[in-house]
């Protein structure tokens, strides 16, 4: 039996004494910060290196901040670095990358979201086999498919054009995206779907007017995944898009992979970070949506 304690004998009113230095919290932040160290160390090296001049890089400590800060590598990476005969830096491919990425992201997500929707709400015959094949497809190393895909595109008469890259990215985005969308849609209340059917909305009506607006978050997630993937893609862009559409990664590759010459590490780092800037921006902008998004969908209505 609990001992009877005189009432109000102890414990003053008020907020729980929130010790700022609570050991558990300290541990928590300590772990997080150690993790930050691990994740940020390479970035630190990259940023520092990109701000140094070559002589300093040759001699210096890779972790040390630059003695003399120079932004020249950044400028050079963006607008002066040479690719073969053209010396226009990454800038040259930037718009091509945009041209490839935007439609590819849109088309691949459109296709995958519809497939995910069909797989979760309209269980058609063989949908399970289909889904299994998709999952399987996500494991096929894509370079292996290069030759057959080239042949397919040639037969379709789109080889070397933007539609070809879009097609390829759509195909390769299918497995993971479909999985993502399917699992998300499956978490939405089924009654909404039923209500929409009673309301006379068809396959597309339900999808476009009811589900899509509710799924903005998962679309954001998928966008992030696809933008990252497609923006950083090199092989498909070069092989399928045609010379006139070569993406920015070609320039990046050329800057970084110049095999016979001096490696300008500062330039390489600057170029990499510049190339990563677009996906990175997308992360920053959508950071909040990213998580709140999935969570909102996972909560049953």
């Amino acid at each position: 039996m609990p001992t009877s304690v005189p009432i109000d004998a102890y414990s003053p009113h008020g907020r729980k004494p929130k010790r700022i230095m609570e050991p558990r919290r300290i541990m928590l932040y300590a772990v997080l910060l150690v993790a930050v160290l691990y994740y940020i160390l390479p970035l630190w090296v990259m940023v520092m290196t990109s701000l140094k001049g070559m002589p300093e890089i040759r001699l210096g400590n890779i972790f040390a901040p630059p003695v003399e800060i120079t932004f020249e590598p950044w400028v050079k990476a963006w607008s002066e670095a040479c690719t073969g005969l053209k010396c226009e830096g990454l800038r040259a491919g930037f718009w091509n990358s945009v041209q490839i990425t935007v439609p590819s992201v849109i088309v691949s997500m459109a296709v995958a979201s519809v497939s995910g929707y069909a797989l979760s709400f309209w269980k058609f015959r063989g949908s399970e086999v289909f889904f299994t094949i998709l999952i399987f497809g996500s494991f096929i190393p894509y370079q292996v498919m290069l030759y057959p895909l080239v042949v397919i595109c040639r037969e379709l008469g789109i080889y070397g054009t933007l539609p070809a890259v879009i097609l390829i990215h759509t195909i390769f985005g299918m497995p993971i995206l479909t999985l993502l969308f399917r699992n998300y849609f499956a978490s939405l209340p089924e009654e909404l779907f039923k209500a929409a059917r009673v309301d006379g909305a068809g396959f597309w009506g339900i999808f476009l007017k009811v589900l899509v607006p509710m799924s903005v978050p998962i679309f954001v997630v998928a966008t992030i995944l696809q933008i990252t993937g497609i923006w950083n893609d090199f092989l498909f862009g070069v092989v399928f898009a045609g010379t006139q559409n070569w993406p920015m990664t070609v320039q990046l590759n050329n800057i970084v992979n110049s095999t016979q010459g001096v490696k300008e590490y500062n330039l390489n780092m600057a170029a990499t970070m510049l190339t990563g800037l677009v996906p990175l921006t997308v992360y920053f902008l959508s950071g909040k949506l990213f998580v709140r998004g999935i969570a909102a969908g996972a909560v049953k209505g």
Partner: protein
Amino acid sequence: MKSSISVRDLTLNFGAVSVLKNLNLEVAEGEFIVLLGPSGCGKSTLLNCLAGLLDLSDGQIWIKGQNVTWAEPNERGIGMVFQSYALYPQMTVRGNLSFGLKNARMPQAEIDRRVARAAEILQIGPLLDRKPGALSGGQRQRVAIGRALVRDVDVFLFDEPLSNLDAKLRSELRVEIKRLHARLGNTMVYVTHDQIEALTLADRIAVMRGGIIQQLDAPQTIYNKPANLFVAGFIGSPSMNFLHGAVVDGGRGFSVAGTVIALEGYDGGRPVEMAKAILGVRPEHIDIVHEPESGRTIPATVELDEPMGADSLVWLTTGGAQLSVRVPVERRLAPGTAVHLRLDVGKASLFDAVTEQRV
């Protein structure tokens, strides 16, 4: 009377589990049918079948003289209110109401007219431009009803529309629905767990159990002359008292725990002698008296009394069985008091203990 909904030999299986078994149901035009039954008995499933949201395993469904067994939900002329509202969260109330109409390519003017009318009926005019997230439970419920309303259909299907509301709001909306029905004259099929709702709203109540309709009758009939033991026990709150005994004296008396009660005035078939029978008496059809009356009363001991607002429920034991009796709240009975119970046999129900059917 013309039949509005006709369900014929409906069978529905989920995989190996048979949820609805050979179910038949005829609903007249303008009728208000309430489906009542324990959780999991297939009420929502039946509603979903009517709405065309589930594919039947067998049987047919006719609505307004048309075989709609394979018709799409929106072609059936039904409106449905879902248990969980199922409002489209990203649309305003107006959007929710007009979505179905837009799908049917109705002219905007007509849509506006109907939305305005529904909003007026349901008193949600000021809410039209809010989103469901910003509505209280009761308001959401009304929007859900409104969504069915605007479709101007002949048949409304309601799946426990009021189950998540507090008592006050619930009784307000109950009256609202009743009025709505009186005004529109639609056919209604209404699922609920709430007996008051069932009893006050229904023209006929269908009591279901395990995918089978046990009884389909007017509320008072269901209440007063339950077809079998299950219905008797299920309907009425507090529930009916069951006395296990035997019919003796060539059907003229009911013997329980050594006492025999005369069955004269019993409203039902002529009882015959039965070794095992059950007499069901509702708590309000028992009087607590202090003097025994031969052939009319049985002795009992007060166990507990439960005041519940206007009335009290007195729990008593008699010959091992437990009974409840409803008395006005003013009448207090101390636990342990020995009393006698006078049963109103005219309002009681007698069941065959084997078949469980009412005699």
